[in-house]
């Protein structure tokens, strides 16, 4: 019995689907206009989520290579930017020594990351320069941690002042007017340096566009005295990372003379760094998606409006249907299907538009920024979710008009002109 009912319902849904399609086709222009609201909203949501997700994926994959036994120490930033760039109270060499002496710390590596002026072939460019520490432990740790490999030429030796190595992009693309080669000379903040090596692709687009030199060399060029942008501490094998973090925090607080919870520095494990970045991205994505949702709601109201109009226009038709045997549930189903269809077709177009949009952003970003960081990602759950959601918006928006249609009395509906 149940089976027969189920198969009847199934067949009805199929038939009514055809009826609904016929009705929508009959009012092509209006159907299109109604769907615009939905598909703009869905397109915005899909592209925002896919770009947000893509950025998160890229960041996660880069950071997961870093290992979890590392601790990253930076001064608190006033604004966004590379580590140390806007710190009120930057880290210094003293801080480094305090950290190095902390219990559980095996070794430390210091880094500077600075925007510098490059002059090459009488043209001026601004790019990031990063440093290698001038001690072999720190340097080896850093090279191993970031998996730096030389593709052409050699690494810079400790103590070398006017030699640099450059990221892969400088050799692969005309980043500075033309592709660079080992032996090329250029100047950093007016000081001439020579390229002795080219790094193999690191997989991190930031590094592939960075030039590298010794810490002391950069310190001299831009007169940084003893400030440090970022300190990476490696914990000894047997130590608990969280415990070491607390020790470093305590020691730095004492040295810098700040109270607990009012630190002007940050001590994070790689794991924490990933999750805090992930959280920021999630929040930003959520806010943007929330805004895009407004468009979907407006689209839903558009569907409600269209369906009310349809009920008014087709009152007589509803009367005829009822006279020839349509039950309330049949009328309800037909109208719900129409509004659901408006929703889902809008959704399909929206998803396609959204994919196209985020792919475009990805390509533009890759060309303009040379960064592969923005990579659109389309997990199936996003596509299916968006379609399901658009169908639901359609069906829910159509519920009230459909109920109104279903409740019409046959005799009243038939007498409508």
């Amino acid at each position, binding site marked *: 019995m149940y089976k027969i009912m189920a198969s009847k319902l199934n067949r009805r849904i199929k038939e009514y689907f055809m009826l609904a399609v016929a009705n929508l086709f009959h009012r092509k222009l209006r159907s299109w206009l109604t769907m615009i609201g939905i598909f703009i909203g869905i397109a915005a949501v899909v592209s925002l989520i896919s770009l947000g997700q893509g950025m998160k994926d890229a960041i996660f994959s880069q950071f997961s290579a870093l290992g979890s036994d590392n601790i990253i120490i930076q001064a608190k930033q006033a604004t966004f930017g590379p580590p140390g760039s806007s710190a009120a109270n930057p880290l210094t060499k003293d801080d480094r020594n305090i950290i190095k002496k902390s219990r559980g710390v095996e070794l430390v590596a210091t880094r500077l990351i600075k925007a510098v002026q490059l002059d090459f072939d009488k043209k001026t460019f601004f790019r990031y320069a990063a440093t290698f520490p001038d001690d072999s432990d720190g340097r080896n740790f850093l090279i191993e941690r970031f998996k730096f490999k030389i593709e052409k030429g050699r690494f810079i030796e400790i103590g070398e002042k006017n030699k640099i190595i450059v990221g892969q992009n400088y050799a692969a693309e005309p980043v500075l007017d033309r592709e660079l080669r080992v032996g090329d000379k250029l100047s950093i903040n007016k000081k001439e340096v020579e390229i002795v090596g080219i790094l193999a692709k690191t997989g991190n687009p930031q590094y592939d566009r960075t030039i590298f030199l010794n810490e002391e060399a950069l310190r001299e060029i831009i007169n940084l005295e003893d400030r440090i942008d970022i300190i990476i501490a490696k914990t000894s094998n047997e130590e608990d990372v969280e415990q070491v973090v607390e020790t470093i925090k305590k020691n730095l607080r004492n040295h810098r003379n700040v109270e607990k919870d009012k630190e002007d520095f940050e001590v994070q494990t790689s794991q924490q760094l990933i999750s805090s970045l992930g959280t920021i991205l999630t929040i930003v994505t959520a806010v943007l998606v929330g805004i895009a949702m407004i468009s979907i709601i407006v689209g839903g109201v558009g569907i409600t409006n269209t369906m009310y109009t349809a009920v008014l226009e087709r009152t007589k*038709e509803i009367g005829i*249907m*009822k006279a020839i*045997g349509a*039950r309330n*549930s049949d009328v309800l189903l037909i109208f719900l299907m129409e509004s659901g269809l408006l929703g889902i077709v809008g959704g399909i177009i929206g998803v396609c538009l959204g994919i196209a949009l985020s792919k475009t952003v990805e390509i533009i970003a890759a060309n303009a920024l040379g960064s592969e960081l923005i990579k659109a990602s389309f997990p199936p759950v996003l596509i299916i979710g968006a379609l399901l959601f658009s169908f639901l918006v359609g069906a829910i928006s159509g519920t009230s008009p459909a109920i109104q249609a279903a409740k019409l009395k046959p005799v009243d509906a038939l007498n409508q002109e």
Partner: protein
Amino acid sequence: MPETIIELNNVWKTYYMGNNEVHALQGISLKVKKGEFVAIMGPSGSGKSTAMNMIGCLDVPSKGEVYLSGKDIMNMSESNLAQVRGRKIGFIFQKFNLINTLTAKENVILPMILQDMTKQERELKAYEILKLVDLTDRMNHRPNELSGGQQQRVAIARSMAMNPEVILADEPTGNLDSKSGSTVISFLKKLHKEKGTTIVMVTHDEHIAHNAERIEYIKDGKIEKVKHNK
């Protein structure tokens, strides 16, 4: 004794217009028996349309009972009534009342969909009926591509879709020229004679009413007189 398909027993229908009560029907009783051809006649405003709605179970009385195959329709749920109506009663309207977005064939098929007929059955049946009304060559046209007479023939075909026990025709020739009108009437007569279909026809045209076996005259919401032909 042929069974009674539709019975109206002392049916009243009262409308309220502001504070005024308007009694469209004032205690009508009539029976439609299987195989009959009944005409309901009356001037406009006599209540014949309201009576037609009652006979077709499209409306419920304010007072009195309407029986469809012996069952009081007041005891049926609206959905149940719709299903029974779809199976037992075929409607033909003055203004054809076809669905404009559907082709002639689809219009004929619609009642069958509502009764869950399978696709093969439907296609076969629709073709068969459309052949009966001589419209197989126009079956893929939409109503607005058909003449009035053709549209009414599609409506007749639709009314026959479920082999109903009774066909209700409300001024079926009202919107047609006399030639198309007489074609429609001849189809109804043929149905009645060859298939034994029960037919109830509402009209204000004495001439057309005389095709029926029995004429019920309505005036002021009451049956004024009954006339048996032949």
